[in-house]
């Protein structure tokens, strides 16, 4: 296997990781605000902050890993995406900054104010929406190179049904993944009122998730036929994704095994996300960048892969430790520690 393939696989896996952990975080932000607005905050907000407090910084590093890694393995992406994304990228950064720092100010600093809860909830939806734009752009037709300059066609972007359907999909997925996780966490904490509430959220957002996915898929077929056809060739992955979705729903409805249910949700997104990614191959930005024409020098590619393996050797045991301490330590989850 060439190191470009290793590189893009590693990056895609980490992006998937970010998709899951960040969805949990962003969605939780929205639910915390929503609960407050509907006067139910006493039920779930304690639960949410117990999980999120120790891990928000880790979530952020997933994102940093992705953008540093992609520029490392495929330096041309810096040129095309960097130039085109100046404005949307900066806006996403400002939102991330507001969210991350306000989180620290409020949770460690003082009591929660309404303004803060609103910002926390709103950024929870706006950030995934703005990040989803990067996926839309990669489909081609929005970033154009003329002469020596690269630019983003805003009008086309904002009038494209594909772009809005991807944003819609991102939003409902965030809410669904997050609710599925919180259901599992509330169950571990044995917190019945919270469980009832978040399980309701999870059930509520399940159907829109599938509808949004289908819509985005249809608009993709109109925008980028090659990508769509490639994905159709991977029909078995899409099928598995749907099957895991159904299995997760079954468990959520019947009210047992929430841990397994969340795991199935993760698999549902895993297969959909990888079908999407593999279908995109070999393009990183249609039609300008493929993983072959943009990859870094071979010796750098090798060095990055070695660094990556070394990094994992450090990271995996540490992550296991975090999970043991904060996710699977029943006493901590229940708030006794």
């Amino acid at each position, binding site marked *: 296997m060439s190191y470009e393939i290793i590189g893009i696989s590693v990056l895609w896996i980490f992006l998937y990781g970010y998709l899951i952990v960040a969805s949990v975080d962003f969605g939780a932000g929205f639910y915390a605000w929503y609960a407050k607005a509907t006067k139910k905050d006493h039920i779930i907000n304690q639960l949410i902050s117990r999980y999120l407090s120790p891990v928000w910084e880790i979530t952020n590093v997933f994102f940093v890993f992705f953008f540093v890694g992609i520029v*490392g393995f495929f330096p041309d992406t810096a040129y095309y995406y*960097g130039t085109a994304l100046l404005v949307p990228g*900066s806006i996403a950064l400002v939102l991330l*900054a507001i969210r991350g720092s306000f989180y620290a100010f409020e949770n460690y600093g003082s009591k929660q104010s309404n303004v803060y809860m609103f910002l926390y909830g709103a950024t929870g939806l706006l950030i995934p929406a703005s990040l989803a734009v990067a996926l839309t752009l990669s489909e081609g037709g929005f970033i154009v190179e003329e002469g020596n300059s690269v630019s983003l066609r805003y009008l086309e972007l904002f009038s494209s049904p594909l772009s809005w359907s991807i944003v819609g999909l991102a939003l409902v997925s965030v809410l669904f993944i997050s609710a599925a996780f919180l259901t599992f966490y509330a169950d571990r904490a044995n917190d019945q009122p919270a469980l009832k509430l978040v399980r309701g959220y999870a059930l509520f957002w399940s159907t829109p998730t599938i509808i949004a996915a289908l819509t985005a898929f249809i608009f993709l077929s109109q925008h980028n036929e090659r990508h769509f056809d490639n994905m159709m060739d991977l029909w078995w992955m899409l099928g598995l994704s749907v099957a895991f979705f159904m299995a997760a729903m079954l468990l959520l409805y019947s009210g047992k095994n929430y841990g397994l249910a969340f795991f199935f949700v993760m698999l549902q997104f895993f297969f959909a996300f990888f079908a999407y990614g593999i279908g995109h191959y070999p393009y990183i930005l249609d039609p300008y960048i493929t993983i072959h024409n943009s990859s870094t*020098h071979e010796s750098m590619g090798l060095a990055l892969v070695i660094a990556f393996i070394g990094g994992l050797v450090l990271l995996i045991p540490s992550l296991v430790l975090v999970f043991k301490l904060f996710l699977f330590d029943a006493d901590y989850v229940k708030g006794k520690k």
Partner: protein
Amino acid sequence: MEFDTVMMSRLLTGMTLAFHIIFATIGVGVPLMIAIAEFIGIRRKDPHYLMMARRWARGFIITVAIGVVTGTAIGLQLSLVWPNFMQLAGNVIALPLFMEVFAFFFEAIFLGIYLYTWDRFKNPYTHWALNIPVVLGAGMSAVFITTVNGFMNQPEGFAIENGQFAAVNPIAAMLNTATPTKVFHVLSSAYLTAAALLAAITAFFILKKKATDYHKKALKMTVTLVFIFGVLTALAGDLSAKFLAEHQPEKLAAGEWHFETEENADLVLFGWLDGEEPQGAIRIPGALSFLAFGDFNAEVIGLEEFPEEEIPPLWIHYMFDLMVTIGGALVIIPLLYLIVSRVKKWNEYNKGLLWMIVATGPLAFLAIEFGWFYAEVGRQPWILRGYMTVEEAATTSPYIGLMFFLFMALYIVLGTLCVVTLRKLFRDNPAELELEKHYPNLEKGDD
């Protein structure tokens, strides 16, 4: 000065870095201070030191948050604002940037654990040990990013043929000639600054409230550390100057207003320029030769040997002088305190001395800023010295000016909220109260 896209790009990067470096320095330095305090506390079974570690860690969470978000901003901005630079440099210097992320990961994970597991382990050293990966992770991220900056000054480890990379050696690029002295100086100055910050806060409390046992111990420990790292920083700075003299003479010459190559060169401190003649400056005969090569008679290259368009702006002279002056002060002030505290008859808590210690905090941060402005502006016009100029590297997007103001607003909000939150956090919860709550059996101080 023209405010075109290049200028706005430089201003945006400079502003983000100038803001990030404040929190990055705290992020590198403070975990070590926490580790030292907690270790002494456990060793001596002294709750005062344990309380220091606890309180510093609490404040630290807030500054880390800003460090993380501004760091994320600069990390992405490197691609957004300097796409051509990253496209080129990505081929050669991606390795340390990538490894830096692992260092962050490592730091973030253990920081989360450390902060939420006070009193969760039977053996107190277990909790203390959880801080070691934080110290190492933060230190390593500073090391890695500094090698990137070293590479920008001293690009090595690649060969270009016909505009293409013919060979790339990522390790050689990372361990470029600029790396050793730069890493040493950046790390020592970060530890110095963190110690000075904590010493300053403690001295300020003593001045405003009173000298409790807790504050006396904290003062002694932090000022001692300021002294140790102050000496190391000055040593590292001297080595950095020797590096410049040999490998980047135009930066040293511009910083020193040294126009003609000569032996036994004078050191010019402050003053102003009249054409090429420094006026009103303090001249120390032969000192520049000594600073540069450790020999009063050595020859130091002057600006006359460089083409005009490759000479950096001459105002960096002030940046250099201010940094070095502060470097001197940060050795002398703690030394004074240490001497006074050794002599029985003298009182180390006298107002003058305490105010001087209060000054070390802001001074150290100023030195960090001056040092970076000297190092970065002194690299002009290059972004990758000898290979790519800043102008060639900048984005072509017309919106860069707008983004500058967007981020400026963000930093103003973040900075303000950070100060407000920290003040609230500590004012509502003074050390004495917290000590009593956690250690009810502790004897009261002798104040």
